[in-house]
């Protein structure tokens, strides 16, 4: 339907656009700017501060004061590099675990009787809505020294003495897998549900045993779902803060924690900004892939 740009259409485009440019895009530019600034014991704790009243000379001074010190710090200090690597490792491993655990559940959901599917999907999604923090906290309950996990394992005589589950990497993985489970299951379910059962029947008719049909028909067809679910998990897990903070140890922090520490603890805004920018650049490729996928899926039909 082609019209002259009706004022409603203009509003529909401009209002959210303006909001997002102001509160999403512009802030990133500011982060970039601050990452190029120097730390200062001042309010705000960085230099230079742009003073519009200073005019053109002020602007030149402003630009001259930019430095790459923060980036040097980020790349020079092994602490930060290990932080990135740790995040990368945790994100990759968690995503794989999520994929392995989530696929059977998504598959079962897709195979369930149609009238039950809605209710079952709701059941899977419901915990997601009952507060992220609460769910992580629930695991503290279970994993702490006198918590239920130890109690159960002692009772079953698998353990002789309570084990420290908290403040370990395993606890972090459990927490992450628990929290991000629906993010993996739902896209997988969406892709599997679309699959025509007749394809499996055709494979069977052509002499393909069930397990081979699964590998050569079901899995390839669910690839878009696998990709979507993986991106939906990997990208945010990279920047996770709450879960490693509550469940993990402080031996090697993930980048989210490091960033938080630099910002609130050391009050080193330029370094924190530089860390954020580097993280953003690392995530750029998966982000673009994600945007490309979602855009083509949802807008293509419009």
């Amino acid at each position, binding site marked *: *339907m082609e019209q002259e740009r*009706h004022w*409603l*259409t203009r*509003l*529909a*485009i401009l*209002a*959210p*656009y303006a*909001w*997002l440019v102001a*509160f*999403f895009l512009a*802030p990133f530019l*500011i*982060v970039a700017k601050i990452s190029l600034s120097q730390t200062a014991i001042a309010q705000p704790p960085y230099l230079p501060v742009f003073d519009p009243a200073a005019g053109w000379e002020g602007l030149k001074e402003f630009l001259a004061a930019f430095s790459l010190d923060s980036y040097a710090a980020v790349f020079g200090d092994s602490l930060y590099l290990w932080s990135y690597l740790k995040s990368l490792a945790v994100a990759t491993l968690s995503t794989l675990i999520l994929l392995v*655990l989530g696929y*059977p*559940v998504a598959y*079962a959901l897709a195979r*369930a009787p149609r009238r039950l599917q809605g209710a*079952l999907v*709701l059941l*899977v*999604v*419901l*915990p997601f*809505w*009952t507060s*992220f*923090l609460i*769910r992580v906290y*629930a695991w*503290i*309950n279970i994993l*702490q020294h006198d918590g*239920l996990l130890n109690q159960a394992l002692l009772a079953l005589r698998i353990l002789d003495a309570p084990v420290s589950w908290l403040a370990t990497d395993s606890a972090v993985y459990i927490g992450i897998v*628990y929290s991000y489970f629906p993010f993996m*299951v739902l896209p997988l379910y969406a892709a599997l549900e679309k699959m025509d*059962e007749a394809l499996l029947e055709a494979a069977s008719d052509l002499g393909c045993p069930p397990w081979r*049909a699964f590998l050569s028909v079901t899995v390839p067809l669910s690839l878009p779902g696998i990709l979507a679910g993986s*991106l939906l998990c990997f*990208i*945010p897990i990279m*920047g*996770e*803060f709450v879960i490693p903070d*509550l469940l993990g140890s402080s031996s090697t922090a993930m980048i989210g924690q490091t960033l938080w520490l630099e910002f609130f603890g050391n009050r080193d805004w330029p370094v924190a*900004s530089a860390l*954020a920018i580097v*993280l953003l650049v690392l995530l750029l490729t998966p*982000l673009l892939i994600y*945007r490309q996928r*979602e*855009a083509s899926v*949802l*807008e293509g*039909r*419009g």
Partner: protein
Amino acid sequence: MTTRGRLSVVNLTALALGLAFLYLPIAILVINSFNDSRLVTVWSGWSLRWYRALLSDDAMLAAASVSFRVAFLSATAATVLGTLAALALTRVARFRGRLLFSGMIYAPLVMPEVITGLSLLLLFVALAVDRGFWTIVIAHTTLTLCFVAVVVQARLVTFDRSLEEAALDLGCPPLRTFLTVTLPLVWPAVASGWMLAFALSLDDLVLASFVTGPGATTLPIRIYSEVRLGVKPEINAVCTIMIVVVATVLVAASLMTKRRQARDAAALGAQL
């Protein structure tokens, strides 16, 4: 290989295990909130003492009030902006900066909150804006409007455009068409979007922590600071309440959407 209609044992087990995994920690937490004992490991009978303790915990109640008000305001703003964004993306074929626009809609969905939180805080500092209640509202609106846009867009894409064309053809100008034809038929999706935004705002910790200011402590921030010191039974009670509230809202939203959509689908589908 099963035919639709019955679940194989394998599938049933997977589903059961999956759901158990998801609900066990929550169930434990809920049950524990009624545990008279302070210790998780000792059961000393049913009791509501922690809920009573909550009522006299002024700090917690204040935080709850802040959270609900922020959630309401940001959800409403996000729904308006997100619906407009969804309309723009599905109805307008080309406009300048469309690529950037859709990028800005999808990116916040997955971007780590530490990045968005940091960037917003720096914006507010650069603009010398006092941080507090309203900065949290702005931050939450920005994040949740993207979720609303995605939800509403998914509905708009399946919306039968010939209904809008029929209205236009019969003399109804575009704005009135939107209000009298489109909106009544997609409002379940818009309402779901609102509820999604509400739940997300209520739940958010990281973003709020970055942009908060004095006197604007949200419930998650409060819970978080308490939790860092260890498990406390009152927290179990708060969490149970939040679970019940959000679950009710969600189930209501889902039922509403399903019933309305089923009826509309029957009416439309049989027309063709």
